[in-house]
């Protein structure tokens, strides 16, 4: 069985995500079953043994997250997939992944929350959790697909980001995208662009595992390669050794944040539809962007100057994009399946005279285009 199943397929978002991970070179998956993400684990558990990968079902999501960090330090690209309740449990060690600068990918298929919520229905309420859920100051990358093709494509992107920036990347899917079936085109293996982590070039005796290059990212040795690295969640110096001082802590935490912050423009992915002359800009992501697209088309048919800005990377938040639009448009409409999360980011970036209308849903269903059209009306006032 080949790893990359080149061709045209009819896949669910979850299946496409699993194939995207495989195409990205992921060969280790640790997880704990949870609706609506479970099909990713199921597909991986079938596919990995065929291609020399390891699937392991752990005792919980805490263990899953730790295991994928361990696998990444063994030099193997790794991932897990979960939903809100499991993501909450993973956050402790997503923080460890940030501190240890460990490339890995976490798929969070969001469902109606809080707590156990509506396991089988759509939600988008883990946006802030993905950004702030672990303790401390840190920056991560989160990317949100809106169709099965993107589940495939963005898993590859997520791995590339994680390898390039040495950070855990969250794929913020939602139940709707994960369970819809659509055409997915998987390219030829040689056409897939992969980014692999930088390896050290110096000798083991000279190697400083946390000394960054000019791009702020240190090369990464794996266990077993002779470097005898020490890696800790404590504040550490270039050697990786714990140093309990503000002098060591400050530059480390700054670098962990700045290696992402300083590259926001490079990382940002958005989709714009009829935004050039727009007076009102609808902002949406994931499955909601599909309803939003219909709403924008209806508004355009009515002759209203409305555009759609779809956020693909949600974290780091594309402040620069919103700020630029804030100079041009009258109002924004934020449509999301939560009670106000991306809303606050947009408000932060908007000008005081922009109207920022919110079309929230708490989960369990998608917006109808009409609901978004109501928001458009409000923002255009």
């Amino acid at each position, binding site marked *: 069985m080949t790893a990359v199943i080149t061709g045209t397929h009819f896949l669910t978002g979850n299946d496409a995500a699993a194939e995207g991970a495989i195409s990205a070179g992921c*060969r*280790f998956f*640790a997880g704990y079953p949870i609706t609506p993400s479970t099909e990713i684990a199921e597909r991986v558990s079938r596919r990995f*043994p*065929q291609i020399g990968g*390891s699937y*392991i079902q*752990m*005792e*919980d999501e*805490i*263990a*899953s*997250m*730790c*295991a*994928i*960090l*361990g*696998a*990444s*330090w*063994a*030099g*193997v690209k*790794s991932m897990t997939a979960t939903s809100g309740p499991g993501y909450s449990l993973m956050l*402790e*060690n997503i923080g*460890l992944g940030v501190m*240890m600068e460990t490339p890995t990918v976490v798929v969070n298929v969001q469902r109606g929350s809080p707590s156990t919520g509506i396991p089988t229905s759509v939600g988008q309420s883990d946006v802030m959790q993905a950004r702030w859920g672990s303790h401390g100051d840190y920056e991560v990358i989160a990317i949100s697909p809106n169709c099965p093709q993107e589940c495939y494509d963005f898993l590859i992107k997520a791995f590339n980001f994680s390898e390039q920036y040495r950070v855990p990347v969250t794929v913020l899917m939602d139940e709707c995208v994960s369970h819809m079936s659509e055409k997915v085109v998987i390219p030829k293996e040689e056409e897939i662009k992969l980014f692999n982590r930088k390896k050290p070039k110096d000798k083991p005796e000279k190697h400083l595992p946390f000394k960054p290059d000019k791009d702020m990212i240190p090369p990464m040795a*794996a*266990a*077993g*390669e*002779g*470097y*005898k*690295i*020490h*890696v*800790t*969640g*404590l504040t550490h110096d270039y*050697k990786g*050794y*714990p140093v309990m001082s503000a002098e060591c802590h400050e530059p480390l935490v700054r670098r962990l944040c700045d290696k992402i912050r300083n590259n926001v423009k490079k990382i940002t992915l958005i989709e714009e539809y009829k935004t050039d002359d727009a007076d009102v800009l609808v902002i949406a992501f994931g499955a909601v962007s599909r309803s939003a697209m219909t709403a924008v088309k209806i508004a355009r048919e009515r002759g209203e100057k409305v555009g759609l800005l779809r956020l693909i990377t949600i974290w780091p938040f594309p402040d620069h994009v919103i700020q630029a639009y804030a100079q041009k448009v009258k109002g924004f409409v934020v449509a999301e399946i939560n009670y106000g999360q991306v809303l606050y980011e947009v408000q932060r970036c908007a000008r005081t005279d922009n109207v920022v209308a919110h079309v929230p849903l708490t989960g369990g269903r998608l917006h109808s285009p009409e609901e978004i059209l109501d928001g458009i009306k409000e923002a255009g006032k």
Partner: protein
Amino acid sequence: MSMEFDVDYEYQDRCMYMAESHPSDEMLRDDRIPHIWCTGCGCGEIISTYIEAVKELDINPDKVAIVSGIGCIGRAAGYLKFDSFHTTHGRAIPFATGLKVARPELDVSVISGDGDLFAIGGNHIIHAARRNMDILVICSNNYTYGMTGGQFSPATPIDSFTTTTPYGNCERPFNLCDLLASAGAAYVARWTSIHVRRLQKSIKEALTKKGFRFIEVLTPCPTGFGRRNKMGTAIDTSKFYQDHGKIDHGADTRDVRLEDPLSDFSIGTFVDLDKETYLEAKERIFSREVKK
């Protein structure tokens, strides 16, 4: 039980007990010395016996990986000059599982504490034993949370005094060896930090085996536990361990419960089984089903 103990370890242990300073060692991160451990702490013996075991077995140090959680003994990873990972509290075992499964040629050992492994990490350790995961776990059991100043742990004997049981502990401890034996461990032993020769031999034995291996090492924590529980200084505790640890290889683990820190207790190799490990099962099943 196939082990033979014909050497006079009793004598050797007494000599080590008076040990001269540790020679500088290529498997120690000497640029991290002085270490953080208190005088008389039992953590040091664990890393020195581990190093000696690796040396005697002539294992390629490049292929050894150490994973620790958080605690005084959790700092072991930072002093051993192998690929070493100091993770979060309780999570060393799943991290080690990821390392081992992704790179099976590594010898992966977890060195951590009773609190780390059996309280916050309790679920992970029983599942690793159940899977017969191919890792060695060495637990420093000092009956307490040393790092946070001597609170009670799931290994603290009933009635003991700790900073959070000022009137005495109302809880009963786990029998760590029995817990892991019944969960499915392939190898279970208990020694103390004063039984350095035997501990070293046990680590060697465990390193040559596969599957889930567990060694409980009773260690004095004079700072956090000993002084509150009539155990005296670290030397007193070590002497006590020397005199009251009764070797009982192959003992039924149900009978090795540590009820009272001041009475006789069993030490030795309690479980030593050859049974299919996680990685062996994986190899067997996947080579049969998949490679078509």
